[in-house]
């Protein structure tokens, strides 16, 4: 944690599966100015400086740098976002197991704490790096830059980024991905798109997961899709059960097409 402001921003750690040590990012570079020096009279009067800068401009710039890197290496990067427990990790495990012979892949896992997800992904044999954000509620473009540097991405591959489980904050942070995929499970309410519209607005693809549980829950798939389209009429949908494999083939076909 930062000694000056206690913001916790440098508590992010990066660790590959199997490594027993982790290291910290160097992302903490916000200003702590102390102004004890004298100033000339020229600057003693009040004045207004016009700035006109995007507050997330630095993240957006870094995201564009990531995007350029991915484009140069022909890496198809996906940012998976959802609330906790929607089945992102299971979806990834099944996807990687099914496609690893056809699409060389790598995974960046984002969670506040633990190596649990990276350990699960590692059993598929795909290279994985865990980012623990500490108190952070989202991944940002700088973390992704550090992470793919460690992973040493192959040319013509896919990079799956599993964001911190949170349907609010990750919406605002471009990571440089090609496509953003929001996952919703049928054990959540079908009105999630109305409750968390910013995330659905920022997504390209919506995966409705755990459809094998539809007989047991009150979830109206068509209603959910209609709500999501009201927020973002460009959304494309996949209805799947990562557990049973139902509907996964069309998701795999889409991935293969996009990764060409």
């Amino acid at each position, binding site marked *: 944690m930062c000694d000056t402001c206690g*913001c916790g921003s440098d508590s992010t750690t990066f660790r590959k599966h199997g490594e027993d040590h982790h290291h910290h990012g160097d992302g903490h570079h*916000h*200003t702590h100015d102390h102004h004890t020096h004298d*100033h000339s009279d020229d600057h003693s009067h009040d004045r207004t400086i016009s700035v006109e800068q995007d507050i997330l401009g*630095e993240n957006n710039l870094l995201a564009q740098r990531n995007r350029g890197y991915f484009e140069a290496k022909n890496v198809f990067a996906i940012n998976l976002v959802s609330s906790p427990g929607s089945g992102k990790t299971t979806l990834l495990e099944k996807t990687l197991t099914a496609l690893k012979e056809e699409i060389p892949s790598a995974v960046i896992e984002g969670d506040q704490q633990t190596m649990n997800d990276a350990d699960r992904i590692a059993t598929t044999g795909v290279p994985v790096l865990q980012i623990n954000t500490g108190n952070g509620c989202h991944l940002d473009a700088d973390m992704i830059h550090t992470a793919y540097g460690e992973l040493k991405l192959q040319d013509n591959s896919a990079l799956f980024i599993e964001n911190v489980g949170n349907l609010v904050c990750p919406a605002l942070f471009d990571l440089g991905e090609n496509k953003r995929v929001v996952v919703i499970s049928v054990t959540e309410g079908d009105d999630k798109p109305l409750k968390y519209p910013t995330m659905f607005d920022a997504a390209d693809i919506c995966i409705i997961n755990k459809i094998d549980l539809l007989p047991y829950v009150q979830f109206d798939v068509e209603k959910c899709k209609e709500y999501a389209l009201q927020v973002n009429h460009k959304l494309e949908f996949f209805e799947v059960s990562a557990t049973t494999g139902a509907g996964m083939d069309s998701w795999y076909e889409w991935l293969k097409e996009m990764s060409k």
Partner: protein
Amino acid sequence: MHEMSIAMNIIDIACKEAKKDGASSISSIELDVGKLSGVMIDSLNFCYESVCKGTLAENSTLSINEVPARANCKKCNCSFEIDSFMALCPECEGYEIEILQGRELKLRAVSVN
């Protein structure tokens, strides 16, 4: 609480600009925050107060200009104000709308002395 990261970015940008100008302190920071920007203004104010401590912006005020959201209907081409992403076109009730403004998250100006 992404408002914490946003407050930190605001202070970073404002302090850089103030330093470039040779200012000794920041008295206020002016922002544009769009209605659909995904930022809670109360939460941003709260985070700002804690983040500005120990910086040139300590004791400064945050002045937030809330930008209303507007959209254009892709079907009938009419333009209208909206208050959420789920808005329907008031003319044809279509939901294929293009958001024209309301996503702003911009630092407009810094007052220094």
